[in-house]
């Protein structure tokens, strides 16, 4: 019998079926990836192994872990298993740790709660596992608090807590989704190393096929609560028997067809922009320190051009975005649109602001839930001196909604009636409605499922054809930037380290940092090569 054996697991929450007949196994030392889009039930499968489910859930089938049926286990028995026989790593490292306890306390707690060692030994073990996950004692003493660590470091602490007692099975639920590509690569390496060292089984939940393609031994593809395909990674990817697997694969590497761009004519000019943040005083009456988030950035965006901006979190790309929009003053340099400054004197220049719109990342948080769609998407009209009213307003709303693939009657609905992808369409409609000359997409597709993301990218290409859009596309996702931009800027620590034609930068990166980024980004395997190697074998 396998280490973990899930047989015909079905799950319902108040008459809604969440999982249907899910069967999967994990052996010791094996990495099994469960992949699928949101709503596929992959996370619920993981949580059912931990038995950390809402109380209203009804389950049937069986989950055997190390020979014990978890669905029959009492809560007390489960508490003995959790953290001991099975450990879990979560998606969001920023919130997965208790902010008021030291990392040492939190790691030792796993050991002490199972009464596995004396407090002194537990402390030694906590130190050992923190060292093992790459948090050495000199820089990361046990007395550190979570808020003193970065996202990647916090994820390492979460992993240390999960493996402190050398569990037989580790469950990782989207462990790298919230992390930068380079950090992601390190965390994946760490997980792989732990599986090898300890002979653990690893059940990894991810929406990103590319992440698991060169890591997992076996892949399980789920859709709407069912397993649609399973198999060893290479043969599964080479054959892709189920159309959904193929659809997922194609959507992950989706390419769009951008129309050619017009002759270069400057639209947005950014010269030597500097943005300083004031730091709190280090001691009373000491002068304020400053943190320079953007260090003399210069670039141009031409009319009709699609420009990409890539970089890791903290590199200053969001700060730069806010400065471009005139939301914050800059401390040096100039930002002009059509020759006019976006920020004049002490306040944003409205004449320029109305030529720019922005689409944000979070399709769930960026709308007021109490307003109807028509009011939401006409908000940019406040920037106009004479906003259209009556019939003209209705026509504008209808046109904007239809342009993004929705229908005019959707205007009277509330935002909660729409899915994430539809909301992002509404966000684009809101940006389009005053026909801006420039749109900023700030991680606009990062929160979407791959198939929805592919549709939104297609929509962008269509809009480029229909409206001659110029946009700045800010993203940490290199594969997306590669397909929807003409030119790209690479930003690191507040500076632009490389810029050039997108294809050229990606296929022939000059700056070492660009190379690091591209190397760290997970890529889907080349299907032809994969097929050949399988036949050879």
């Amino acid at each position, binding site marked *: 019998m396998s280490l973990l054996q899930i047989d015909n697991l079905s799950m319902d929450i108040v008459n809604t079926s969440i999982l249907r007949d899910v069967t999967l196994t994990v052996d010791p030392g094996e990495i099994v990836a469960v992949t699928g889009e949101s709503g596929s039930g992959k996370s619920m499968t993981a949580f059912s192994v*931990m038995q*950390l489910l809402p109380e209203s859930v009804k389950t049937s089938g069986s989950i055997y872990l190390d020979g014990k049926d978890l669905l029959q286990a009492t*809560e*007390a028995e489960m*508490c*003995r*298993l*959790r*953290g*001991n026989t099975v*450990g*879990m790593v*979560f998606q*969001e490292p920023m*919130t*997965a*740790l*208790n*902010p*008021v*306890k030291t990392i040492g306390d939190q790691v030792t*707690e*796993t050991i002490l*709660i*199972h009464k596995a060692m004396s407090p002194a030994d537990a402390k030694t073990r906590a130190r050992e596992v923190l060292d093992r996950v790459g948090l050495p004692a000199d820089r990361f003493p046990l007395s550190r*608090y979570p*808020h*003193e660590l970065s996202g990647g470091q916090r994820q390492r602490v*979460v992993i240390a*807590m*999960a493996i402190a007692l050398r569990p037989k099975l580790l469950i990782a639920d989207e462990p790298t989704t919230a992390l930068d590509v380079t950090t992601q690569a390190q965390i994946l390496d760490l997980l792989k190393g732990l599986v090898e060292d300890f002979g653990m089984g690893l059940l990894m939940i991810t929406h990103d096929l590319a992440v698991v393609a060169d890591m997992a031994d076996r892949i399980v593809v789920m859709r709407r609560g069912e397993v649609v395909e399973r198999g060893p990674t290479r043969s599964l990817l080479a054959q892709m028997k189920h159309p959904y697997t193929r659809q997922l694969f194609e959507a992950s590497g989706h390419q769009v067809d951008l129309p050619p761009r017009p002759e270069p004519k400057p639209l947005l000019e950014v010269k030597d922009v500097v943005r300083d943040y004031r730091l*709190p*005083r*280090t*001691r*009373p009456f000491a002068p304020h320190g400053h943190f320079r988030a953007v260090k003399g950035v210069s670039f141009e965006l031409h009319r009709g051009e699609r420009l990409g901006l890539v970089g890791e979190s903290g590199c200053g790309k969001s700060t730069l975005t806010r400065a471009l929009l005139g939301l914050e003053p800059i401390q040096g340099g100039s930002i002009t649109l059509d020759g006019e400054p976006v920020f004049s004197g002490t306040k944003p220049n409205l004449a320029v602001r109305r030529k720019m719109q922005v689409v944000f990342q979070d399709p769930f948080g960026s709308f007021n839930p109490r307003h109807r769609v028509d009011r939401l998407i006409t908000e940019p009209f406040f920037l106009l001196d004479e906003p259209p009213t009556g019939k003209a307003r209705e026509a504008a709303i209808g046109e904007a909604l239809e342009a993004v693939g929705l229908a005019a009657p959707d205007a009277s609905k509330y935002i909660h009636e729409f899915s994430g992808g539809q909301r992002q369409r509404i966000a684009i409609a809101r940006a389009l409605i005053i026909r801006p000359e420039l749109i900023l997409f700030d991680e606009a597709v990062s929160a979407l499922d791959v198939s929805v993301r592919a549709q939104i990218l297609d929509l962008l290409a269509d809009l480029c054809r229909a409206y001659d859009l110029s946009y700045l596309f800010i993203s940490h996702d290199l594969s997306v930037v590669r397909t929807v931009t003409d030119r790209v800027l690479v930003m690191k620590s507040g500076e632009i380290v490389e810029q050039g034609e997108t294809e050229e930068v990606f296929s022939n990166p000059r700056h070492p940092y660009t190379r690091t980024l591209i190397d760290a980004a997970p890529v889907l395997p080349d299907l032809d090569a994969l097929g050949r190697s399988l036949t050879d074998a």
Partner: protein
Amino acid sequence: MLNYIFKRFLSLIISLAVASLVIFFVIEVAPGDPAQFMLGINAQPDTVAALRTELGLDVPKWQRYLGWVAGLVTGDFGTSYTYRTPISTMIADRLWVSLPLAIYALTLSTVIAFPAGIYAAARRGKGGDMAVMGATQLGVAVPNFWFAMMMVLIFAINLRWFSAGGFAGWDKGFWTGIHSLTLPAVSLALPQAAILARVMRSALLDILGEDFMRTARAKGLTRRQALWRHGVRNALIPVLTIIGLQFSFLLAGSIIIEQVFYLPGLGRLVFQAISSRDLIVVESVVMLLVFAVITVNFLVDLAYAAVDPRLRSRT
């Protein structure tokens, strides 16, 4: 951490200075002549003039302000116009009733509210939660003097465990004093406990939904262990804020309860001083209360930092 304390302390000093200025100028300067006001419209001019000299109103305002502040700092609050006794003694006597009463009531309210709030949060939506929430609804809705009267009826008149009113004084022993403050403290504490329990419950429910509570469960903690080890301390910040506000209220706002139980407290002193237009007493008591509120806020700020390491490192 030291930097944080220093900053909070600095803001305490500034708040006190601003408060003293505002109180002084609003009461003494704004409504015209205090002496005339204190004596009423029909007073003889020479009586007013005499009072003006007595109050020291004939010197410049800034001098009077400095004198007043210097007096406050050294404990010399001046002399009451109606009682002809030093205000500092009057306030000190009253404070010996009001301060213990406030602390007693706050302790009771915390002791009742914490377990009730935690219990309700742990059993969200179940019978226990509904019972606690129903009780707190009642506690918030029913005025404290009604509790006071009911308690006098039951515990003083029927059971004769406590006296119906008055304060025995501390010179007959600590427990005698506490005994005579018990009924007033309980009636003050009940509505406060109801509010605090609701705050505790909702703060804890917010925390229970946090990711790190799930992490704790994944480590093998039981629901109860996770709640106590990771939940309660994180829920304390909003609770501390309410406790701070309640203490200030209890110190001065207990006038109705003092009236019901015939307690010689600060509330009644202010009430009498206002009715007899004894402005110097009002001014001094108000300043004292402001001092208490600001000091309590300072202590709450320090408590925040003790609870949450993120505040400590934010310099």
